[in-house]
C-alpha cells in the first residue's frame, strides 16, 4: 500500500479510535486485497511504511462482501459498481479479505 495512505490510515485510527474505523477495499486481485487487508490489521508485511510493526486490527472488508453490499444504495451500486462486479472474481476477493479479517482484525461491523 502507498506509504502516504498507510500514514492516513494510521492517523485516522489514532484520531477516531481503531474500534470506530472501517476500511473498505476496492482491489481488483485477491493477492493485492490480501496485502491491503493484512496491512491495516497486522501491519505492513513489506516493512516499508508507517504501518510496519503496527497491528491496528481494524475492521476491513472488500466492497464485494455481502456486509458492505447490503449497506449500499442498490441503484447507485448498479450504476457505479455493477460493471466491475461482472468482470472481477468477487468471490475470491471477498474470501481473501475475510480470511485476513478473521485472522487479524480485532473489530468487525
Amino acid at each position, binding site marked *: 500500500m*502507498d506509504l502516504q495512505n498507510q500514514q492516513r490510515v494510521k492517523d485516522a485510527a489514532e484520531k477516531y479510535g481503531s474500534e470506530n474505523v*472501517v476500511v*473498505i477495499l476496492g*482491489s481488483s486481485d485477491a493477492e493485492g486485497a490480501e496485502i491491503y487487508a493484512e496491512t491495516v490489521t497486522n501491519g505492513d508485511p513489506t516493512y516499508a511504511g508507517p504501518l510496519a510493526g503496527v497491528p491496528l486490527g481494524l475492521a476491513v472488508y472488500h466492497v464485494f462482501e455481502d456486509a458492505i453490499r447490503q449497506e449500499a*444504495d442498490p441503484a447507485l451500486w448498479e450504476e457505479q*459498481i455493477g460493471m*466491475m462486479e461482472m468482470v472481477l472474481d468477487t468471490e475470491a476477493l471477498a474470501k481473501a479479505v475475510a480470511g485476513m479479517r478473521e485472522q487479524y482484525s480485532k473489530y468487525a461491523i
Partner: protein
Amino acid sequence: MGKLAGKKVVLLGERDGVPGPAMEACLKNSGADIVFSVTECFV
C-alpha cells in the same frame, strides 16, 4: 440503522478494480462518515 452508521470509513479503491469515488457514491446514504477515499493505481 445500518451497520456502517456512525462508523469512520476509509475507502481504498483501485483504478483497475472499484475506484474510491464509486464506493463513496454507493455508501453516501449508509450513515457512514467517510474519512477519506483514494484510488491507487499500480502502473
